[in-house]
């Protein structure tokens, strides 16, 4: 039985198609997912992301504990700023990708994927034992509502006095939104400008309604996980379980830049990652654009001259390109003459560098 978010009744009233996602009952789409995708690119979409996990790390050594537990240099993060980072195992394999917000000098919030946050919380507790820091999984207390798209700031500005214009990408500040206490973060997973609002569960429904009302004149519509997936795919953003997993290091995924070897002290996975950091990975993560209309999907083989040279990790029809796109791990050097084996038929693909879509800033 899937867990509902605090917004479940709202989704049902809106006629959402609900689906199980990582044990949560989530809105897949409200109407047409293509229309929702377009709305986020052109105006703004409202997402319920309450399935994400929020783990708080608090104490005089919270920063050092995270430096040891994660691959990033979190003690160097200024209060009010956020970082994209990862937690890896001793072999350097990715356990999850994370956004860490430094809320105060001695308090961080680690946002983990729905499928992983219990594991991440437990790992953080173990890894922080030697430090003067307390790890607390507060995922059950928080809802997360995201406003994503070019009109996001205008919409949110009608409900808060917080300095949104001064809030940089990957920054977050506490503030009142529609009179409710929220952490307002300028982060997202769509390739557009946007905000993520972390609020107490009981504030989720009234905040949702306030945002819908404030956004309506700006074209805001609710958007489900289906459009979120095609939006992040166009933006070339990895999804844990597709592009990332315990058999891959951050270097395998082309994200070696998140590993900060120059931070002080040891960290879990350091020796394993140092051993591979200068290796040429056997495969690299690339973009594929289909010449035809059939869609490459997760797990389909990438071929060249009939020989398997890679595997698709995510694929979908792309509205922004008008053709199907995919992310795939492909053998180094296999840059042309590629195809994807789509249920027995080898469909030609052009290799492109990621991302597929970049917004105009």
């Amino acid at each position, binding site marked *: 039985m899937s867990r509902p978010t605090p917004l479940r009744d709202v989704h049902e009233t809106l006629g959402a*198609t609900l689906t199980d996602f990582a044990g949560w009952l989530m809105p*897949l*789409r409200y109407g*047409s*997912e*293509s229309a929702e995708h377009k709305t986020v690119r052109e105006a703004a979409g409202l997402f319920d992301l309450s399935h994400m996990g929020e783990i708080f790390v608090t104490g005089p050594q919270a920063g050092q504990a995270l430096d040891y537990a994660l691959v990033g240099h979190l003690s160097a993060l200024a209060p009010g700023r956020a970082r994209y980072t990862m937690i890896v195992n001793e072999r350097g394999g990715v356990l999850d990708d994370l956004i860490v917000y430094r809320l105060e000098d001695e308090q961080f919030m680690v946002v983990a994927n729905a499928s992983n946050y219990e594991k991440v919380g437990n790992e953080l507790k173990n890894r922080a034992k030697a430090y003067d820091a307390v790890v607390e999984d507060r995922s059950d207390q928080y809802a997360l509502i995201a406003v994503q798209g070019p009109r996001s700031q205008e919409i949110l500005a009608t409900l808060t006095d917080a300095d949104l214009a001064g809030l940089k990408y990957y920054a977050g500040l506490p503030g009142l939104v529609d009179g409710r206490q929220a952490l307002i973060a300028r982060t997202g997973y769509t390739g557009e400008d946007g905000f993520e609002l972390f609020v107490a569960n009981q504030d989720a429904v009234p905040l949702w309604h306030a945002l819908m009302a404030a956004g309506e004149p700006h074209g805001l519509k609710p958007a489900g996980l*289906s459009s979120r997936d*095609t939006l992040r795919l166009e933006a070339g953003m990895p999804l844990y379980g597709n592009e990332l997993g315990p058999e891959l290091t951050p270097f395998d995924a082309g994200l070696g830049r998140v590993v900060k070897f120059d931070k002080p002290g040891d960290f879990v996975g350091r020796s394993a990652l140092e051993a591979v950091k200068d290796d040429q990975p056997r495969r690299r993560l690339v973009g594929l654009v289909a010449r035809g*209309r*059939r*869609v490459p*999907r997760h797990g389909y083989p990438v071929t060249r001259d009939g020989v398997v040279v890679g595997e698709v990790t995510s694929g*979908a*029809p792309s509205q922004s390109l008008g053709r*199907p796109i995919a992310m795939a791990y492909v053998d180094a050097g296999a840059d042309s003459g590629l195809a994807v084996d789509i*249920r027995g038929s080898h469909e030609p693909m052009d290799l492109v560098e990621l991302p597929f879509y970049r917004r105009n800033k």
Partner: protein
Amino acid sequence: MSNIPDELNYTKEHEWVAGLDDGITVTVGITAFAAEALGDVVFVQLPEVGSTVEAGESIGEVESTKSVSEIYTPVGGEVVEVNQAVVDDPSLANSDPYGDGWMFRVRVEGDPEDLLSPEEYAALTAGES
């Protein structure tokens, strides 16, 4: 509850069949239930006109943003027409599944697969939704 027109027959694979009564050609499409379950249809592949098909055979596919499904023919015979409009604009399968979103026509030879009445199909989809 999806729209299930009274005048059609249905299959367990969520297709509809029209024109059985004239005994010559039938028209086949996917049901509103199927279209809703798929989400936005982005690609439709249909058989060649003139090809001979057997009842129960997979003869095409329907792809949406999230998934792909095969199209089965519930009747055997010769494919006499395919809907080029739905190939060119697959969203017709969502917007008008029983009308402009029809898929193909077959000149029937032999007996069709076991088809469902509207009532039987309603019971089937009630169990799945």
